Each structure stands twice: as structure tokens, then as C-alpha cells.
């Protein structure tokens, strides 16, 4: 078949209308480039998407809460002007098998009194824990919107960046340098043991260390995952999480509006089939609809495996790079239930009137139970007693469900991409959903009968719908071997690839996933530098 060449040439084509792709596209369009974003699905959003699958209910199908999205991106791309509003929610709660609970509250005194119901010591140790998380946040935050230096390079820019990193590290002083190195490599369970004695306190806090991660709370490296969930902020409240009004699709819808206001074009139902190269250089992209679009700059928001093992002629890649991409850890470990509810379910463990019902709710009350859930995943079955991160955003955001009805987002850890019994099918998907509903029902007697509709998503579904390899929500595990100048693979952490003109801007790149947007912004900066357009200063992007 001869491809039909698109009449129009673009300066750049971005693959995938997820948040990072759109952010990179926005910055390039603002720098004066003609930019086309191509999207495989009939709708934009990637994993930051709102969909109506049942009556007037809006689901945040994939990502469901927001904290990490960099404020400098929201500001420079004028996302509020284009409809984005982030509303913080307060705290959360873990319900215990014995009928008890632990809640987190924003008010410091309420929080201390709450924790002291379980341990007086832990109540006072919490301040030390929060302090150390803040200390680590202060170290890492300035690195998010910077391109990681290549430690093997002698280029002045890399040397300067390495110096910057080294100075920041050194300035912490001896004790904190040790602490930081340990922190980046240790397990979350070990880390929490240094502060707390109460299992419920540890279990509640450890949740953030396993979300989206194919590791257990006792696996080395999970302490960093905890930090990854803490380093965001809402209006400078560090560690706070919130809802995008209208669901997570509001993020990408605002980005799309901002992009279009800068003259950008988005084409849906137009997935990329192949990146076209000539002499080791990207020259365009062939789309599923049979058209070819010519552009000297191709920017992939897809994960590193999907990009280089799926869209590129392998002969164009160095063997070493190819091998590293194949071995990139991007394991599916999370499922998701999106549920339309007739009313807010009752949770007898939560006291009447406690505001934590509007926060994140959990049912895993010990580290051991969490680790056990991971053991199931390793054995190729979904967790029989899964960890859930469950929220009812419609209690805060009136746009998510009809009045009086509610939308519940249930993130489920762990769920394998490939089952020991073989591939996923409808029956297994239903059985997985049933396991989750049963687990929640143990804390909520009326939950099941309030369910009007439930969308059940396995890692396999997420891969097929969104495109994330194995359904990994971070586009690659957030472990030390895959962070900073090693993300996605050594030597290619600066958003460029072995193919000139082909760039990466997805969460497979530094600083990783979580609807942060930093990879997209950082990639745009590198692209514009290569195009010598970096004279156009982008405020907030230094």
C-alpha cells in the first residue's frame, strides 16, 4: 500500500495526547513551532482522562487524584484560564479488620490526638516523619524541572548540572547525606520502622509506597516511591492531594485548549504506526489511517518500550540501547474499578461525621497484609486481600455524578498483567472485580447494593485502552536504577534518543509519572534547545 502523504508539513509531531505529550506540544507551539498531536483513541487524555460510561456519571478512568502537576506548568500554560481547577481533599482513613480505624486530618492537633489513640509515641514521632519527608522533598523538588546531567559527559552543561546536584547534596551536611542515600534505596517498611511502632500507622502511610509499583512494602526502593507521592503540593501545601474539577480529564482538556489557543492541532483516531527515518534521522510518522506526516522533530509521549520496540525500525537502534529498553522495568501491577453509586456507602469503622470519608480510604491495616497482597502478585494471581486506594470525589466535586449519587474510584494494588492461569478474559476480569467488591464489602455492608455500574480495569485493559505497557501507571518502575540520569536508560536521560530528531517526553523519562508534567516540559526545553529556539524564554522553565 502506498501511503498518502499529508499535505501539510509540521515542525513537530507529538505521539499521544496524554498530559506529557500535550505539555511538550504546548511549549513547542508557544515557541512558534507548528505542532501536530496525534492520538490513537477517539478521545484525548491518555491516562488523565474523564469519561462518561454510565448515564451522567463522570469517571476519572485511570489517574484519579492530582498533586504532582507542577504549578509552574499550570501557570505558564494558563491552564486555569482554560478551565483547570484543582481542589484539595482532606486526609484519609484506613479501616481495620477489628472495626477500628486510623484517620489522617489536616489539623495538627486533631491528627496528633487521632494517632495517639493508637500510640502516644507515634503521635509525637509523626512530626519527625513529616519533617524528614519535607527535608527530602526540599532536596528533590528543584531537580524535577531540570534535565538530569549525564555523569559521564564532559560537556560544560552536564558538568554544571552535576556540580549543582553535588552542591545541593553536599550542603545537606554529613548526617543528612547518609540519610538521603539510605532513603533512596531502602524499603518503605524499614523506613517507617525508624519512626513508628504502631502497625496501623505504618500500614496507612506505606500505601503510597506501593501504589503503581510491582514491589512490596518490604522491597528495597519503596521508600522513594513514598516520597514520590509526597513531593507534590497544592498551593504550596506540600504533600496535599486533590481532585481536578470534572475529573482528571480536566487536566488534559485544559492542556488541549491551551495548545489549540497557541495554534496547535490535535488529530484523534490517528495512532502512530511507525516513526519514519532516513539516514538515522527521524523524518516523519506513519499513522494507522494510512497517512504519513512529515516533520523533522518527532516527540513520543508513549512509554519507552512502546516507542522503541513498537514504532521504530530496530535496525536503527544501537544494540546496547535496544537491550536496555527491552529490560526496562515496566511491570503491570495495578487495577482499577470505577463505580457509580446510588449513595455514599456506610463504613461502620469510620465515626459519624468524620471528614476523612471525603479523603482516601483503605482497608489494609498492616504491613504484613500489604506484603501478602504482593506475594499473590508474584505468584501470578491478583491479591486475594488487595490494597485499595478508594475515593468518592463526587462528595467534593459536584460535576462527577448526578445530585445525591456518587462516583467512587477504586485503585487496586496488586493485579498482574499476565495471570499464572494465562491471559485475562471476561470471566477473570469479573472475578477480579468481585474480589475487590468483596474486600470493600467487609468494611461496608451496604456497598454492594449501592452499585449501579462498575467498570473493571485490569493491567491488560489499561495497556489496551491507554497504551501503557503492561498498564504500568508510571511508564516504568520508580526505582533508583531507573531514576535521574538512569531514566529511562543510561545515556539517554536527556529526552533525546539514538535516532536524531526523535525525542521522548513521557513518564518513562525523568522525573517519572504521577501526572506531574515535568517530563513533557523538560523534553520541550531540550527540543527547543536543539532547534536553537531556546532564546524564546519560557517563564518558569529554567
Amino acid at each position, binding site marked *: 500500500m502506498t501511503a498518502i502523504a499529508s499535505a501539510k508539513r509540521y515542525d513537530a509531531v507529538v505521539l499521544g495526547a496524554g498530559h506529557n505529550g500535550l505539555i511538550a506540544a504546548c511549549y513547542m507551539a508557544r515557541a512558534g513551532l507548528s505542532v501536530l498531536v496525534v492520538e490513537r483513541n477517539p478521545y484525548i487524555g491518555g491516562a488523565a482522562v474523564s469519561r462518561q460510561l454510565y448515564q451522567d456519571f463522570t469517571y476519572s478512568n485511570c489517574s484519579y487524584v492530582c498533586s504532582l502537576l507542577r504549578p509552574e506548568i499550570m501557570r505558564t500554560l494558563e491552564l486555569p484560564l482554560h478551565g483547570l481547577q484543582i481542589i484539595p481533599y482532606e486526609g484519609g482513613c484506613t479501616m481495620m479488620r477489628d472495626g477500628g480505624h486510623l*484517620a489522617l*486530618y489536616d*489539623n*495538627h*492537633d*486533631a491528627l*496528633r*490526638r*487521632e494517632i495517639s489513640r493508637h500510640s*502516644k*509515641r*507515634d*503521635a*509525637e*514521632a509523626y*512530626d*519527625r516523619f513529616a*519533617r524528614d519527608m*519535607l*527535608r527530602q522533598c*526540599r532536596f528533590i523538588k528543584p531537580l524535577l524541572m531540570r534535565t538530569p546531567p549525564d555523569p559521564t559527559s564532559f560537556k560544560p552543561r552536564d558538568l554544571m548540572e552535576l556540580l549543582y546536584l553535588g552542591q545541593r547534596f553536599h*550542603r*545537606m*551536611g554529613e*548526617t*543528612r547525606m547518609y540519610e538521603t542515600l539510605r532513603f533512596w534505596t531502602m524499603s518503605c517498611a524499614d523506613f517507617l520502622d525508624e*519512626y513508628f511502632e504502631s502497625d496501623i500507622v505504618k500500614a496507612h502511610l506505606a500505601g503510597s509506597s506501593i501504589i503503581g509499583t510491582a514491589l512490596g512494602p518490604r522491597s528495597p526502593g519503596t521508600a522513594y516511591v513514598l516520597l514520590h507521592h509526597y513531593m507534590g503540593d497544592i498551593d504550596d501545601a506540600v504533600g496535599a492531594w486533590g481532585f481536578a474539577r470534572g475529573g482528571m480529564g480536566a487536566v488534559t482538556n485544559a492542556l488541549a485548549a491551551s495548545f489549540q489557543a497557541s495554534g496547535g492541532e490535535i488529530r484523534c483516531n490517528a495512532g502512530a504506526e511507525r516513526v519514519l527515518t532516513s539516514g538515522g534521522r527521524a523524518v516523519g510518522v506513519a499513522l494507522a489511517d494510512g497517512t504519513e506526516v512529515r516533520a523533522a522533530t518527532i516527540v513520543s509521549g508513549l512509554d519507552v518500550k512502546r516507542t522503541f520496540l513498537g514504532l521504530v525500525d530496530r535496525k536503527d537502534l544501537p544494540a546496547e540501547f535496544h537491550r536496555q529498553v527491552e529490560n526496562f522495568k515496566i511491570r503491570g501491577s495495578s487495577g482499577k474499578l470505577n463505580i457509580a453509586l446510588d449513595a455514599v456507602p456506610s463504613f461502620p469503622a469510620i*465515626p459519624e*461525621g*468524620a*471528614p*476523612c470519608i471525603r479523603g482516601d480510604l483503605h482497608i489494609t491495616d498492616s504491613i504484613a497484609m500489604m506484603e501478602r497482597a504482593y506475594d499473590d502478585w508474584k505468584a501470578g494471581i491478583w491479591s486475594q486481600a488487595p490494597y485499595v486506594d478508594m475515593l468518592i470525589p463526587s462528595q467534593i466535586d459536584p460535576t462527577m455524578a448526578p445530585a445525591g449519587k456518587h462516583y467512587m474510584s477504586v485503585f487496586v494494588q496488586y493485579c498482574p498483567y499476565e495471570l499464572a492461569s494465562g491471559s485475562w478474559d471476561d470471566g477473570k476480569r469479573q472475578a477480579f472485580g468481585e474480589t475487590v467488591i468483596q474486600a470493600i464489602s467487609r468494611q461496608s455492608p451496604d456497598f454492594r447494593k449501592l452499585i449501579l455500574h462498575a467498570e473493571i480495569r485490569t493491567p491488560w485493559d489499561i495497556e489496551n485502552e491507554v497504551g501503557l505497557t503492561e498498564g504500568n501507571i508510571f511508564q516504568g518502575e520508580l526505582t533508583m536504577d531507573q531514576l535521574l540520569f538512569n531514566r529511562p536508560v543510561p545515556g539517554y536521560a536527556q529526552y533525546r534518543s539514538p535516532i536524531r530528531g526523535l525525542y521522548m517526553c513521557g513518564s518513562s523519562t525523568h522525573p517519572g509519572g504521577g501526572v506531574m508534567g515535568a517530563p513533557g516540559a523538560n523534553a520541550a526545553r531540550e527540543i527547543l534547545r536543539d532547534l536553537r529556539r531556546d532564546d524564546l524564554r519560557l517563564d518558569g522553565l529554567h
Partner: protein
Amino acid sequence: MSDAANRPPHFKQPLLTTPFHSRTRACSTVDQFVAWAGYTTVDVYTTVEQEYFAIRNACSVYDLTPMVKYRITGKDAENYLNRLVTRDVRRVKPGRVAYSVWCNDDGHLIDDGTIFRLETGEFLLCTAARQLDWLLDSAIGFDVAVEEVTESIAALSLQGPTSCAVLKALGLRGVERLRPFDIGRFVLGGADMTVSRTGFTGDLGYELWMTPADAVSVWDRLMIAGASSGIRPIGSQALDMARIEAGFIMPNIDFVPAEASVRIGRGRSPFELGLEWLVDLKKGHFNGRRALVAEQKRGAARRLVGLDIDGNKPALKALLYADKSCRREIGAISSALWSPTCKRNIALGLVDAPYFETGRQVWAEIYLCRELEWERRVARGVVVEKPFYAPARRKVTPAWDR
């Protein structure tokens, strides 16, 4: 206790009330409360000035209950505290109180507080901040029990020239013979009460410690006993004025507790805070000693000092300069007050070497909002000795009646 059982849940009412709340609430006319260490407490009852003068002219009553209290008991209690704090606790005899500070390994202040030696092997540690995990970690290897007892002890502070007279009128026989930092035990209407000659005002004064069940009746008796001696409840604002005159420091105002600080370089040593008199480097090993020995050798790079500032406008949060043209920044003011008793414009500020020497001149950059128009003033300040106010009556035993 029924009171604790009946209280609204913490997520509806995060702040606790003290056992004196029914009384303090009733005395509050301006409805000005402030959160202090997890309790709602009175910031101002009527007017700050009148309350302040109760401290310096008559007898003030301050609800001290939220002060965080740890009971430390056991065979090794003395050794434990001696290892924890900078002072030599062995020299604090039973029935005595000592003010002290304690440091982390860097020799930076974790907190300051008072150590009450109730018995040979029983201490009460009163602190500003909660730090049970630090105290428990420090207890490893000692035969000692550390228990947080804040809620089980109600406390009032009586400060001012007629405070002893009020206590005598209350029927505490022999209370005048308590020396500064003495602890006495009394029985009042059948209830036990512990009285220490301590306070945070630099004046004659006492602190009363009792079980919460006795709190209201003690308050009521005090008000009757003190009626002719000018007794008056005071809020935190008035107390803050007196503590600045006395040259006392406040955590999170004049220093950031080292273990609570997030940023690098915020820790402060006892030397830097002008508290070297609390540091006994000869007593044997204690937490932070090594760093303090090194710092003593090196000399402090900065110091919290008393300042006498020209003019009458308090130099609140002012930056300090070496020169009137404000080119060379040498520090900042953390507490400032026009002192109604000293008739001086006083302040506490952290000043770089060598400007912290007594008698040195510094310049404070003060911003005044005068009916919405800002005026910048550069006022001369002189480094002076603390305390700014130290009446003889604070030390005299037997204590004076007025």
C-alpha cells in the same frame, strides 16, 4: 474520667480545653483565644496592658496546663536526665527545680524547659514542644520510665509582687520561705497541691500544680484570696511582654528547635542563644557535648543578645545592619517590645560576630504602617546585658508581700 468521655471527638473539636476552662472562659471579655500545644487558651482576657501590669504590680494568674509534661521515674532517672540535658542534674536536689536545655548530636537546641526533681528518682520535665519519641529513644539503656502526663496535671502560674501574699491568704503556710526554684507541698481544702517558686516573668512568682479534679476549686479560692491583692487572670500576650523583659527565649520565636527544622543551618547552640551558663562541659558526657566543646574552642559565629533600640517603636522582625546605610546585614530581631516598666525599647536579636559584643552599635530597619502608609526607619540599637528587668523581689527569701 467523664469529662474526657463527654468531650466532642477530635475531628470536630481538635483543641482540648483545660480543667480551668469554665473559669477562664467566663473571665474572657474579648473572646480572644489562641491554640497552644493542643489546647484552646486565652490570648487576651480584657486588655493586654492591664493584664501586663497585674504581673508587674500585683498578682497575675496564668493557666499553664498546656505546658507539655513528662514524668520520668526509675533507678536511672538522674543518670538519664544528666545524659539528656546540658546541666548537671546531680546537683539538683529533691525538692528543687532547674531550668535547662537539651541538644541533638550537633549541639543544637531541641528545646528548653524546667526539670522538677520531685523525689530522688522522680522528675517532671516541662517543655514547650512534644518530643516523646526523642525522650524514649534517649532512654535506651537506662532503667527509666518516661510518661507523658500533660493531661493529668493542671497548673496555674501566679506571678507578681503580691503573689506570695495571695498564697498566704489562701492558707499556704510557710510558702514565703520557698527559695527561688524550691518545690513545696501543701494541702488546700483537703487536696494536695505542689507549689514551685518558678515562672516565666523574671518576677516574684509561683507555679501551682494539682490534679485536674481540684482545678476549679483552687481557681475559685485563689480569686477570693487575691481579691484585695489585685489578682487578675492574664492571657498569653501579657505574659509574652514580661518574658521579653526577663530576657527569656521562646522556641519557634527566638530559635527553631533543631529536631523540628526542615531547612539546613537553622539549628542553634546554647552558646549562640546566650545560654552558656546552662552548659556544664565538665559533668561528663551528655548529648551534643562533643559538638559544644568544638564550638567553644571555635567561638560562636553569632549570638542572641539583648538590644536597646532608639525611639519607641518595637523593632518587630527587623533586619539588623552594621551601618546606618543598611549595607551590611548582621542579623535579625526575633522578639521586640516597648517595655512599660523599663521605659525602654527592647529586643532580642541574633547578631553575627563581632557585633554581638556588649556595647556594640547596630542598626535596625523598622517598617511602620501609619494609617496604611508605610514608613521606613533605621533606628540605632545597642547591645546590652539581659535581663532588661530584674527586680530584687524575685530572689528575696522570705518573699515580700508586695
